[in-house]
Structures are given as C-alpha cells and as structure tokens.
C-alpha cells in the first residue's frame, strides 16, 4: 500500500490565543484532486503553509510525501509544486529568466513541458513578472511549479481574482500537465472545483468537518421540500437535516445523509400526511453555503 502524499494527525497550529488548526486529522489519497473548502479564516492557508513547512505546527504531525513537514528537505521540495495567490515572486525577473533560474534546482525539470505550457498559456517570455497581469503571473507560477513533474501539487486559492477565461485556461493547463500527480487545492471557487475535484474536505474554525469523495458528498446532500396538508412541524427533527425552513404548509431542509429509501421512509414517518416531496441534488456551492450557515449559527 502506498503512503498518502499528505497525512495530518492531530495537527494543531496556534497563533497566540487563536487556534488556527485544531487537532486536525486528514488523509489525502494518492492521485486524488483534493479540494479543501471552508469559509474565510477557517485555517485553509495555515494548513497549507504548515504542510510546506512555511509554518511549524504547534502540535501534531503533518507528513508530506511520507516526511514530517518540519523535516522537508530539498529532495522532497523537488517533488512538490506550490502555487499560492499571495506568493511574492521575483518581480524583476523576466518569465524566461525565472524559469531558467529555477531549472537547476529540479533534477526532473522538463524543458519540453515548460515550453508546451508557456505556449498554452501564451506567456510572453521577455516580459518581467512585474509587468504581467495577475492571471499571467499565476500562470507563470504554475508553469514554474509543474515543469518538473511534481508528485504533489499544492495550490492555495489559485483562482482568486482571475477572470473566467483565465481561470478556465489555468484549470485546463493544470489538469493536462498534472496527470498522475496528487493535487491539493484550496479555493472559494466551488463551481470550478466541483468540476474536477475527486475529493472534498470542509474546514471550519480549524477543524475538518468532513473529508470524502466528491461523488459521495454530492450523493448524500439533497435539498428536500415537503408540502404539508396541515401546519404540523414536530419539535424534534433529525440531526442530519440542516437549514430547516418552515412555512404553514411547507418545510424545506438540506438532508446531509441522503439515501433514497431510508430518507423517504424517514419523511413518511415524520410527516405521514405529506402531499408532495421534492428532492433536488445540490451543487457544491449550495452544500458549502448550507454547512457554513449552519456552523456559523451553531457557533
């Protein structure tokens, strides 16, 4: 059995009184495209920076490519591609010089691949990074992080501030060039992530609320609407029902453990006279909002 590229065990990171990561357990399967979602301040960037040893954990262990993140050596970094939205780049360098500068650092640097990506992204080689737009800069960063065929690609909010066209190009380039690699991506752009992620993790207040395959997640979340003949809402509803909204003859909620037979039986037992039951699949964005609002309310 191969080791997970990313594995966290009871990982905590504390900034003075703020617990940014709270005993987090996480396993990212090899070859997966793992999307880490969560509201602002949930701890996504902290987690990523801890994974790449920019920050050191307060307790617990984060292992990357089988090595404790605190002990990541150049050998491991040569197999990790990291792109972040707020990364400071050597702005004085031209695109060409930037790539040439980095080439000797990576034994597996693939010039052909770099050229392909440059062509695909239409990056001007002789232009300084400081003169590039934000989207172009992110593309240059991506090229510099994929040209050596890393085993693990870590992206921190790579789409923020990019227009839809650039975003599409970015994702296209990423998926084409990163085949076989494990991708760990944090993003607010849930619509984009949903289209290509294989696994999803939801982080809130430093705690991982869930972590599962995207298909399973999509399958277990449903928005359900029930029309009732008489206004009779029982006091105790199942815990798996979130964002319950009621009107005299209507109840709407998000079922988080949807299974067709079982859920229908449950509805029939709670609302025996239910006239009309509508069950709709939910996009990732809706799931995110439902979870975020519920957790915020609970907090």
């Amino acid at each position: 059995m191969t080791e997970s590229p990313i594995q966290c065990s009871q990982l905590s990171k504390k900034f003075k009184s703020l617990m940014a990561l709270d005993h987090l357990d996480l396993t990212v399967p090899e070859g997966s495209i793992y999307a880490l979602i969560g509201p602002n301040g949930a701890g996504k960037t902290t987690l990523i920076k801890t994974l790449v040893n920019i920050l050191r954990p307060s307790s617990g262990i984060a292992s990357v490519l089988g090595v404790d993140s605190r002990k990541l050596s150049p050998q491991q970094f040569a197999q990790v591609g990291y792109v972040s939205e707020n990364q400071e780049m050597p702005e004085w360098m031209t695109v060409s010089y930037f790539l040439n500068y980095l080439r000797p650092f990576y034994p597996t640097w693939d010039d052909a691949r770099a050229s392909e990506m440059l062509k695909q992204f239409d990056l001007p080689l002789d232009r300084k990074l400081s003169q590039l737009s934000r989207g172009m800069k992110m593309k240059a960063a991506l090229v510099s992080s994929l040209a050596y065929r890393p085993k693990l690609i870590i992206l921190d909010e790579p789409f923020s501030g990019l227009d839809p066209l650039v975003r599409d190009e970015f994702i296209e380039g990423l998926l084409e060039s990163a085949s076989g690699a494990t991708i760990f991506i944090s993003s607010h752009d849930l619509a984009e992530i949903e289209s290509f992620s294989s696994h999803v993790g939801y982080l809130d207040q430093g705690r991982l609320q869930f972590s599962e395959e995207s298909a399973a997640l999509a399958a277990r979340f449903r928005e359900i609407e029930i029309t009732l003949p008489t206004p009779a809402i029982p006091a105790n509803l199942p815990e798996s029902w979130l964002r319950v909204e009621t009107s005299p003859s209507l109840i709407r909620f998000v079922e988080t453990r949807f299974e067709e037979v079982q859920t229908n039986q449950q509805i029939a037992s709670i609302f025996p006279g239910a006239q009309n039951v509508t069950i709709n699949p939910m996009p990732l964005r809706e799931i995110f909002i439902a979870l975020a609002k519920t957790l915020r309310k609970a907090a």
Partner: protein
Amino acid sequence: MRLIFQVFRKDIRRLTAPIVALLIIHATATVVEIERHWPVQPRSINRIDWSPSVLPITWLFLIAAVLLQERLPGTTQYWLTRPIGWPKLLAAKLIFVALFINAAWFLSDCVILSSLHLAIHPLALLYHQVPLSLTLLLPAFCLASLCTGVGQFALGLVVAVVVFVIDLLFNFFRSSIGGVAGGIGESSAVDFDIQYSPVAWPLIALPALTLFIIGFQFARRFTSPSRLALLIPIFSLIPFTLFPTMDLFSMHQRVRMFGDKPDTGPSSLKFSFDFESSRKPVVVERSYYNNLQLPVRIEGLPKDVFVEGLGNAYLNGAQIRLSTNLYNDDNGYWLRIWNADSKVNFVPSMTVDVTASLHIAVFKIEKTQLIPLSNPGLFSPQPGTFCRSGPTTQNVLQCWSGPGQSSDEQYRAFTWLGHSSVELHSSPRENPWAFSPIMSWTLYPFGRASSEALPGLSPEAVVRVLTLRPLAEFNRTLPTQKIDPGPYRFTP
C-alpha cells in the same frame, strides 16, 4: 555547489547597479588613500574625500540588498518552497559579501601598498579584515536576516547608532571630568587589557551572538526570538557604558589627586646622539608587534636622566605617517617606529626608507616629580603637568601634560621607570572617539590602523636609509625624494 552558484549569479544580476556603484566608490577611496600618502594634492583630496566614509554605508546596504533577495522573515516568499537548503543559501550570500566587500577591500589594500612601493603581506591584510567583519559586516548581515525590507534595516542601523552615540556622549563628558585612562588598546601604561574591561565583553559577545542568530534564522526562521536576542546585547552596552569599570574609576581618582603639581627644574642639558650604522642597512634586532626597533646611541647624557622622543616618520619618501618614539631600557636607547594610521606592515625582508622626525624630551625623575631638562621648543611636560609614582607592581609613573606641540593635541605621557616611553594621544575634547571604548573598537576597522596587526611579524625588517631631521624642517617641506642619508647630530 551548482545551486550556490546559481543563487550567487542571480544576486549579481539583480544587484549589478549597486555592485558597480560600490566598486566605483571603492576605486575612488583607493585613489584617495594613495593620494593621502603620496605627493599631496590638497584640492583633489578634498574633492573626493567623501568616498572612504561612503564606503561602509554602501557595504551595509549591499549586505541588506543581497539578503533581502531571499527575505527570511515572512511566509509568502516564493523561494521558501523551492528545493534549496539553508546552508547553500547562506553560502551563496556569504560568498557574495566576501567577494564584493572583503575581497574588494583586500584588493584595494594591495593596490594602495603596491602604489606606495610597499611590500604586500596577504596574511596581515586579511588579519585587518577580521575586526571589520566581526564588528560591522557580521552584525549587519545578522540585522538584514531579521528585516523585511531596507526601511526596517535602516531603522535597525539607527537604533545601533543611537546606542553608540549615547556611549560616545557619555565618554565625552566623562573624559572632561578628570583624566581618562585611554581606550582599549590605546594605553600600554597600565596593561589596559581587554580582560580588565567589562565594556569589551558585549563587543566580543556580539559577533558570537550574531553568528548564532544568523545560523538560527537561516535554519529555522524564528524571526521574533532572533530579533529579541539581537536587541539584548545592543542595549546591554548602555548600562555597561554608563557605569565605568572600577579600573577606570580608580584611575580617574589617581590622576586627579596630583592635578596641580608645578613643573620645575633646569632646561639646559646638552647632549647629542646618532644612529648606529645610519649609512648601511640596519637589521632590526627586536620587534614589538608591528614596530621597527632601531638601536640608537646617545652621547653626553648623565645616567640618571630619561630621554623621550615623540614624532613622525615618513616611509619610502611618501607621506605615510609613522609614529616614532625614543625610549631606553637596560640595553640602551631605541628608536621605535610604528605605523599609526596606514596599513603598512613591517614584514620580514621588507626594505624601507624611513625619515624620522622627533621631539626629544630629557627629564629627571625625583620622587614623584618629572623634571624636564631639555630646551624649550622640544617636547617637554608643560606647566600643569602632574605625575606620581604608580602604586602598581609595574612601578609606573604617569604624567599628564598640558597642551602639546599643536593646538589640537595633548600629550599624555606614561613613563615606566624601567622602560620609559611616551605615548601621544589626542585630546579627549578634540577627539572623543578615540576615548570611547566602544567607538575605538567599532571604528578600528575604518581607521585602518595596523600598529597591532600581527604580533611577532617583523623580527628582521631592514631599514636601508634612516635620516633624522628636525620636525620644523619636516613641517615646511614634505619629502618627495630620498633624503641623502648621513649621521645626524642633534645639538639643541
């Protein structure tokens, strides 16, 4: 190695303009230094005299610039996740500093020495760079590794300067209270060694600590604790400065006790002296640090008097200022010549032409009084001189004179009964820098003083031509040609 070179090359490309500026300033400073020692052209010196003082500032900001290319504090730098280990990164930065600061300075020294037709002794020149590297470059390197930008670096420098100015001011006012014992390395009269001065300990600890912080910061990037660790020794200098050591305090008291003793005695003794073998090469038989020790024969002196000489010497016909003094011991009289403000090192097999000029003082010592016997116009203790026999086991006699030969200098004489010598110090009022222990250490590298360069380096220096001339003649015309050697008879 390949990656070190890659980072190094990148830094050169990025910092090409500052490097070129530094080299231009270096070249200018070199020319200034050469001109300062060679046939004098006052106008040209004045025109470009700014370069030596600009040089250290350029060094500091070049260090900051190269380190900030891969800024250590922060979490957003692209290079943090690139596969280069901290030892390689540190090595690349150190090589950069070594090449463009240390090596450039070394080269400049070599050019200066060869322009003045002086022997180049690489080891001695490298030795000069040790204090520079420890007291300036290393702390600057450390400071830059803790900063997020040039502005923060400049702020750090300001803090350091403020601390030093406080030290300077305190030493200035302390100097005017009563006598000053002299700074570290300034006085040989009381064996004022580093071990007697707690002030020196932070200065020793600072390079050690900065080395530790640099390693710690590169390896772990724990910026906040490292900043705190750096601030502690800097600020600890202030209390060390504000409370003088017991040695200094007791010396103040000692000097003040005898402050008003009048100067008495006849000034009519005649004597003459000559250098042995002045027409042929003189092999120096003894050496003290970087000094030439030449045997001198003095005739006509009674046995119970002491002779002191103090003055300047000029080397190879150039205006390289050397200091000389005359002293006696059991083996007779010796003329000691040492370089006070140039980088000249007397090295084995070095051939030098020296022209020396001395003020001669002849005096007797009766009880605690120093009685001048030489004629007016020569160096002699002025009215207001106070002396006493020292209570130390070295049997030291300390003398403090009034204004010296020039208006802006004072002579302070320290005379051993066994090994008499006279040392010249600037007035504390005129030159407080020299009397600040911290400053004398810190400014040591800039002074390019090499009189204590390498102990025991010059046991067999050869003086080919040695001419003794009156100081007045020297002041009138600068020697630009070799002076015809000949026995010189001094008849005041």
